[in-house]
Structures are given as C-alpha cells and as structure tokens.
C-alpha cells in the first residue's frame, strides 16, 4: 500500500505570493494533520482535519488555511508568503480523530523556499 504522498516535493516562491500544498493520506485513513518543520527544529502543528472538518489548529496566522476533500486528501494554503515561511511542510495521516494513542504516518514533505 502507498504511504502518505505529498506534492510537490520542492517549491520556490517569492515574498507576497501564495502557495498550495497537497497531501493524499494512506488508504483508509480519515484524519490528516499538517506540520511546519523549520531547519533545525521539530515539527510544529498547524492543522488537523477529520471528515472534512477542522479538529485542531496550532498557533499560526490566518494566512495559513487548509481543507479536506471527500476522498480525505487535503490542501494547505499559505497566502502573502514571508521569508520565515521557508520550511519543510509535513502531512501526516491516521485512522481517526479523537484517539490520541494512534501514531501518525508522515509523508516526505514539501520543501518550500521563499526568495
């Protein structure tokens, strides 16, 4: 079975632009979470979606938004890009929400560079 897939793998944008990152969860997984990993740091939680509804939000500005589709895939959108948005964006999926003991399974991420 395929793991979590993310696209694109790399992306270069300039300040002020917007970007859309995509994620397909493991088959059967209904929960998708997004994380930002800045170089040298651990992943920081951005959003969690389950059954197309937002179930959790981290401490990120409103420039960050996301959505989940009926097939459980997800998009992360970032508007008005800043240099500080340069990071590896990770998507993770799990079977369900509300079951904190479930591990999350991560994709290889999208490396976003802002010039």
């Amino acid at each position: 079975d395929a793991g979590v897939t993310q696209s694109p793998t790399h992306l270069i944008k300039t300040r002020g632009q917007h970007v859309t990152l995509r994620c397909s969860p493991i088959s059967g997984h209904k929960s998708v979470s997004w994380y930002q990993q800045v170089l040298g740091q651990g992943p920081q939680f951005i959003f969690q979606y389950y059954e197309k509804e937002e179930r959790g939000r981290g401490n990120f500005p409103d420039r960050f938004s996301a959505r989940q589709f009926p097939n459980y895939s997800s998009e992360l959108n970032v508007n008005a890009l800043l240099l500080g948005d340069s990071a590896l964006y990770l998507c993770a999926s799990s079977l369900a929400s509300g079951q904190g003991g479930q591990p999350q399974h991560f994709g290889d991420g999208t490396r976003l560079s802002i010039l």
Partner: protein
Amino acid sequence: AQSVAQPEDQVNVAEGNPLTVKCTYSVSGNPYLFWYVQYPNRGLQFLLKYITGDNLVKGSYGFEAEFNKSQTSFHLKKPSALVSDSALYFCAVRGLNNNNDMRFGAGTRLTVKP
C-alpha cells in the same frame, strides 16, 4: 499545555555499543508518548509509542523506550547501535485531553561511528 524536551542536541556512540536518547515531558494527566526517526530529506517514521501498561515499550528496528512517570521521562534505547541508526530522533507527546495537537521536541542527532 503539553511539551517535550530533548536535552541533547547530539549523541555520538560507537557501533555495537548501547545508545540512549533522552526525552522528558510535561503534560496534564496521563500522556501519550511517541518516538519518531527522520532520515535526510525524508518525513518522520514512527518507531514506538507509550499509551498505558508496561513501562518498557518495544518498537521497530530493535528500539525500545522506558516510561518513567516519577521522572516524567521517556528515553529511547537500543542495546547495540548500528551505523544505519544514524539519523534525527524526535520525541513527541499528546495530552489525554488534547488528541489533536502533537508536540515534538527539537530533535537529537544520533551519530553511530564504525
């Protein structure tokens, strides 16, 4: 709010020696604790988790972790390190009342030398 701390930025061990990567946590109530490993240009791979039960948890690739409630620690261990274990290791915690927010430590870079 829950948090984890990984006090060592880097751990160096010789191949064949035991390894320990340290993690302490802070959470209200009982925690869900996880270890993940990250290889260069890759996402995080799940190694093991503690939910409840035995304090010694066994995971993938020969790794294990010991949950110590009194010391609020969850150290990752392996009896005999391999060069291929060299990677970035992350400890993570979820609080019992906050299932949707997993907090990660800053990571520990493990280097195993031949």
